[in-house]
C-alpha cells in the first residue's frame, strides 16, 4: 500500500521540461520572456486552500524528490489525510502552524509554467486574520476564492470577496472545491454559482470565472477532469496562464513617479530616482513637480544599462530634468497636463491592523508613496461588518476592523484615489511610539474643504505681536499625575511673570473641561482630543505673542509630542512635575484617588489608565525635593533667561549679560 503510493508519487515529482535537455538556450529564451502573475488564494483551512496550492506546485512538477520524500514522511506523521499525501504540509511553513494545523501568516510561493511565472500569496481565511488577507491582496492581480462545494456560499466567502474587491483586485476566480465529495454534481455547481452571482453584483464584482475543482484529487487544476464532462470552461491553471492583466488603470493613465532618492554623484549630475507608478515617460516630455507645481522638461531617462527612449509603469529609473528645479524625496513628478491632486484632508477607508485600537485625534505617521507626514484620523463615520457589509456606528476601530473615516495631514499630500492608483492612493499608518505598522488605508477622495479653505495671509504676524510685547512667546507645558502640583506651580509661575511685566495666560485642565472641552470624557480617545484642542488654542495664543502656561495631566507622550511639533523649535517647554504616585495619592487634594480606588472613577491616570512620563523634558520638578516657590523660581529662570539655575541674589553680577 505504502509502497505503491511512493512509486506513484515519485513518478509525479519534479520533471524537467523536454526543451531543457534538448535546447537549453531556447528554453532560457522562452523563460526570459515570461510574464508574471501575482495572485492570492482566499479560503479557510477547511476549504482546502493549502491543499489546492500544494496541488498546483505538485502538478506543475515543482516538488523535488527529496521534498516529496520529506512530505510523504510528514504526511504519515502529522498529516490529516491518513496514508495519503497531505499537500497542505507543503505550504504551512512556521512551526507553530504545523503544530496547530492552521495557516497564520502570509506565505509567498513560486512556480512557473511554459507561459507564465506565478507568485502566490497564501493567506489565512479566518476573520481574525483579515489583516493578513488584506496584506496578501495588496500586491495581487487576481484572487482565487475557494468554496467548499458541500457548504456553498458562506459568510467567509462574502468576507473574502469583499476584501478582494476593496483592495482593488479585478480578476476573480471562484474555485468550487471538493467536487469529489458531492459526486461532481452539476446542479450543486450551478446553484453555488447562481448564489454567488447574486451576492457579487451587490459589492461591485461584475465578472468572475467559476471552476469546479478537487484539490485532493486534482480535478480541473492542471488537467481537465473526466468527472465533470458538463464543465466546458477553462481549468484553473489554463486560466491563470492566459488571463489578461495589463489593463491596470494606472499603467494606461498619465505619467506619475514618486521621487525616492535624489542621485547626486557630482555637481554635473542631478537625477531623480523612482519607480514609475503610472503612464510612461520619454525625454522631451513636459512634467510638473508636485506639490510645488513647478514645470520642467525631461532631459534623460537614465539606467545602468544606458539611457532609455521610453520607460513605462513598473520600471525603476532615474530622471534628469532640463531645469534646476527644487525636487526631493516625497515629491511626485507627473505629466504636466494631467497632474495628480494635492490635499490635506481626505475621506479614507482604513483597515486597522494592531492590537491597540485606533485613537481618533492621535497623530500617526502616514506613508503614501514616498511621502511621510503626520496624520490625525477623525472618529469613524462607520465600521463595515465584513461578513454582511452592513454599516455599523463606531467610535474607533479595533484589530481587523474596517471603517470609513476622515483624516487630515500636517502637510499637503500628492495623491490619487485608490481606485485610480494603488501606488498613490494606498497608505499605511505607523505608531509614533512603537513604530509598528498599525493600519492600511485607501484614499477615497479629498474633502472639498481642504481645497477651498486657504490660509489667510495676515499682515501683523506672530513676530510683530511678540515684538510689541517685548517677549518671546513660549508654551510651558506642565505634565504630571493628578495632584502632582501642576496647577499650583503654574499659578505661581504666572504670578512671577505678571510681576515682571510679561504677558501670559494660564490654561488649566479642569477649567478647559468646563467650557471648550465639556463634551469630552476620560477615555483614551477623549484624552487625545482634549490635548489636541488645547494644543491648537495654545498655538493661537503663542501666535499672539503670549507666554502660555498649560497644566494638563496629558498622560500620553504622543499627544505632548504632537503639541510640540505644532510650535516653532524652542517654544515648547515641557515641564515634568515629577511626583511619585504614592505621594500624589497621599496628598489627594481633590479626593479623587480615594474615589478611583473605590471604583467610583473610571480611567483614572495612574490607577487604571497609564501615564507615560516624558523622555527628555526641558524641565523636571521633583516636588519631593523642591517647594512650589522654588519650583516656580526655577522655571521662570529657565523661561526668561534660558537657564535652569535660580538667580543668585548674593551675586550682584548675576544679571549682567543676561539681557534683563
Amino acid at each position, binding site marked *: 500500500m505504502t509502497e505503491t503510493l511512493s512509486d506513484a508519487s515519485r513518478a509525479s515529482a519534479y520533471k524537467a521540461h523536454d526543451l531543457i535537455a534538448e535546447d537549453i538556450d531556447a528554453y532560457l529564451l522562452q523563460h526570459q520572456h515570461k510574464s508574471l502573475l501575482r495572485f492570492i488564494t482566499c479560503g479557510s483551512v477547511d476549504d482546502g486552500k493549502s491543499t489546492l496550492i500544494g496541488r498546483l506546485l505538485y502538478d506543475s512538477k515543482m516538488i523535488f524528490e527529496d521534498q516529496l520524500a520529506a512530505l510523504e514522511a510528514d504526511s504519515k506523521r502529522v498529516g490529516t489525510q491518513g496514508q495519503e499525501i497531505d499537500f497542505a504540509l507543503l505550504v504551512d511553513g512556521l512551526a507553530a502552524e504545523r503544530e496547530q494545523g492552521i495557516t497564520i501568516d*502570509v506565505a509567498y510561493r513560486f512556480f512557473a509554467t511554459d507561459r507564465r511565472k506565478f507568485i502566490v500569496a497564501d493567506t489565512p481565511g479566518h476573520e481574525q486574520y483579515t489583516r493578513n488577507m488584506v496584506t496578501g491582496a495588496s500586491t495581487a492581480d487576481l484572487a482565487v476564492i475557494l468554496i467548499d462545494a458541500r457548504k456553498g456560499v458562506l459568510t467567509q466567502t462574502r468576507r473574502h470577496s469583499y476584501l478582494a474587491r476593496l483592495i482593488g483586485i479585478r480578476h476573480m476566480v471562484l474555485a468550487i472545491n471538493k467536487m469529489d465529495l458531492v459526486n461532481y454534481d452539476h446542479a450543486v455547481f450551478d446553484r453555488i454559482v447562481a448564489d454567488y452571482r447574486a451576492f457579487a453584483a451587490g459589492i461591485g464584482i461584475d465578472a468572475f470565472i467559476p471552476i469546479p475543482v478537487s484539490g485532493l484529487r486534482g480535478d480541473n487544476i492542471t488537467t481537465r477532469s473526466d468527472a465533470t464532462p458538463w464543465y466546458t470552461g477553462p481549468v484553473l491553471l489554463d486560466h491563470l496562464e492566459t488571463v489578461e492583466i495589463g489593463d491596470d488603470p494606472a499603467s494606461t493613465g498619465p505619467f506619475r513617479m514618486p521621487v525616492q532618492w535624489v542621485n547626486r554623484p557630482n555637481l554635473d549630475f542631478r537625477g531623480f530616482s523612482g519607480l514609475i507608478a503610472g503612464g510612461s515617460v520619454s525625454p522631451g516630455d513636459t512634467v510638473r513637480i508636485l506639490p510645488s507645481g513647478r514645470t520642467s522638461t525631461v532631459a534623460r531617462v537614465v539606467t545602468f544599462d544606458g539611457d532609455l*527612449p521610453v520607460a513605462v509603469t513598473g520600471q525603476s529609473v532615474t530622471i534628469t530634468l532640463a531645469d534646476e528645479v527644487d525636487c526631493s524625496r516625497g515629491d511626485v513628478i507627473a505629466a504636466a497636463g494631467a497632474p495628480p491632486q494635492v490635499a490635506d484632508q481626505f475621506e479614507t477607508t482604513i483597515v486597522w491592523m494592531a492590537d491597540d485600537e485606533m485613537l481618533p485625534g492621535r497623530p500617526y505617521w502616514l506613508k503614501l508613496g514616498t511621502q511621510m507626514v503626520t496624520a490625525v484620523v477623525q472618529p469613524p463615520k462607520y465600521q463595515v461588518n465584513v461578513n454582511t457589509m452592513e454599516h455599523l456606528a463606531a467610535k474607533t476601530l479595533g484589530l481587523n476592523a474596517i471603517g470609513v473615516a476622515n483624516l487630515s495631514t500636517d502637510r499637503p499630500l500628492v495623491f490619487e484615489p485608490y481606485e485610480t492608483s494603488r501606488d498613490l492612493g494606498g497608505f499605511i499608518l505607523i505608531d509614533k511610539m512603537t*513604530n509598528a505598522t498599525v493600519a492600511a488605508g485607501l484614499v477615497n477622495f479629498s474633502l472639498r474643504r481642504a481645497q477651498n479653505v486657504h490660509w489667510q495671509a495676515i499682515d501683523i504676524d506672530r513676530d510683530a505681536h511678540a515684538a510689541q510685547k517685548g517677549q518671546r512667546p513660549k508654551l510651558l507645558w506642565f505634565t504630571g499625575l493628578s495632584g502632582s502640583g501642576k496647577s499650583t506651580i503654574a499659578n505661581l509661575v504666572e504670578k512671577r511673570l505678571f510681576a515682571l511685566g510679561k504677558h501670559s495666560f494660564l490654561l488649566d485642565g479642569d477649567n478647559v473641561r468646563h467650557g471648550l472641552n465639556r463634551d469630552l470624557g476620560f477615555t483614551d480617545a477623549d484624552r487625545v482630543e482634549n490635548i489636541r484642542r488645547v494644543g491648537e488654542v495654545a498655538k493661537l495664543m503663542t501666535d499672539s505673542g503670549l507666554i502660555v502656561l498649560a497644566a494638563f495631566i496629558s498622560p500620553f507622550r504622543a499627544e505632548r509630542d504632537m503639541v510640540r511639533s505644532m510650535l516653532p523649535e524652542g517654544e515648547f517647554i515641557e515641564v515634568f512635575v515629577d511626583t511619585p504616585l504614592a505621594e500624589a495619592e497621599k496628598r489627594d487634594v481633590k479626593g479623587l484617588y480615594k474615589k478611583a480606588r473605590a471604583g467610583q472613577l473610571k480611567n483614572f491616570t495612574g490607577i487604571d489608565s497609564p501615564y507615560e512620563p516624558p523622555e527628555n523634558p526641558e524641565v523636571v520638578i521633583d516636588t519631593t525635593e523642591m517647594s512650589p516657590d522654588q519650583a516656580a523660581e526655577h522655571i521662570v529662570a529657565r523661561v526668561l533667561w534660558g537657564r535652569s539655575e535660580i538667580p543668585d541674589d548674593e551675586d550682584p553680577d548675576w544679571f549682567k549679560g543676561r539681557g534683563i
Partner: protein
Amino acid sequence: MQLYAACTAAPAGFEGVSTTAKATSSEARISAERLTHLQRLEAESIHIFREVVAEAENPVMLYSVGKDSACMLHLARKAFHPSPPPFPMLHVDTTWKFKAMYEMRGRMARESGMELIVHQNPEAKEKGINPFDHGPLHTDMWKTQGLKQALDKYEFDVAFGGARRDEEKSRAKERIFSFRAANHVWDPKNQRPELWRLYNARKSRGESIRVFPISNWTELDIWQYIHLENIPIVPLYFSEMRPTVERDGLLLMVDDERFPLLPGEEPVMRPIRFRTLGCYPLSGAVISEAATLPEVIQEMLLTTTSERQGRAIDHDQAASMEKKKREGYF
C-alpha cells in the same frame, strides 16, 4: 579563466540583452503588460534598495560572495547608477571559505567602488573554532555571533541580505523588511504587515532591520539574470577537476592544507562543481560536466533534488532554519 569563458559563451540573442534597456523608439510606447517577470523583479529590487537608502541612517550590504550576493550587488549598482552604492559591503568571514571566494570578494569590492568590511569573530578565532572539530558551534560562533558583533560594532541599522523566499519554508513567510529587536531576535508572530510597495523602515535605537531585496526571486531567476547580465560569479560554480574526498555522503573539496585527512584517506581528482557555496568543509560538491552558465542552468533544471541538499546546515530538524533565525542567524 572559466568565468569569462562562460560569459562570452552566451548565444546570440542573449548577449548583453538588458532587462531594462534596448527598447528602441520604433517599439513605440511599450505597455506595462509587456514587462517580463525578470524586469518586474529587477524594478522591485531596485525600489527596495532606494527606499532603504532614503530612510536608513547607516545601512550595510551583507556580502557572502555566493551567486545570490553577486546578483544582489549587481542590483545595488543598478539602483544607484551613476553613483556607487552609498553603503559598504560586509563579509562575515569564518576563515573557512574557499580560496576562490576570497579572490572574488577582493575583485568585486574594487569593481563596485564600495568599501569592504571583513569581520571575523575574535572569540572564535582565539578558540580556533572550526567545522571539523566543533560541528554546529562553528556556524553559531563564526556566523550568527559574528554577524551580531559586526552589526553592533559598526552600529548598522539596516542590513541587506540575499535570502530568497523560495529557499525554504520559513523564509516564505518572512517580510522583505524584517524587523529585529535590540538583541537581533526575529519574532515570526510579530512581523509588521507589508502592503503594496510601502515599507516601514522606522525603528527605535538599538533595533535593526534586515532587508531582503531579492525575496521574490527564484533560483532559476537568479541564474537567468546572471546569464543575461554577465554578472561575475565564483568559478567554483563551474565544473573543473578538483581534489575531493567523500565523507558522510557529502563530496568535499580539499581546498587547503587545513583539511584533516583521515588515515588512509587520499584526495581524488573529480569533475565537480558547487550548487551553493559556504565554508568549504561544509559545502557538498556535485559531480558535473557543466562548465558554462547555460550548462549549469540546464543541469540545475534537470536535477530532481532541491538546491539546499548540498548545504549541511538544514539537515538537523524540520524547523531548524526557523530556530536559527529566531536566534539571530541571517
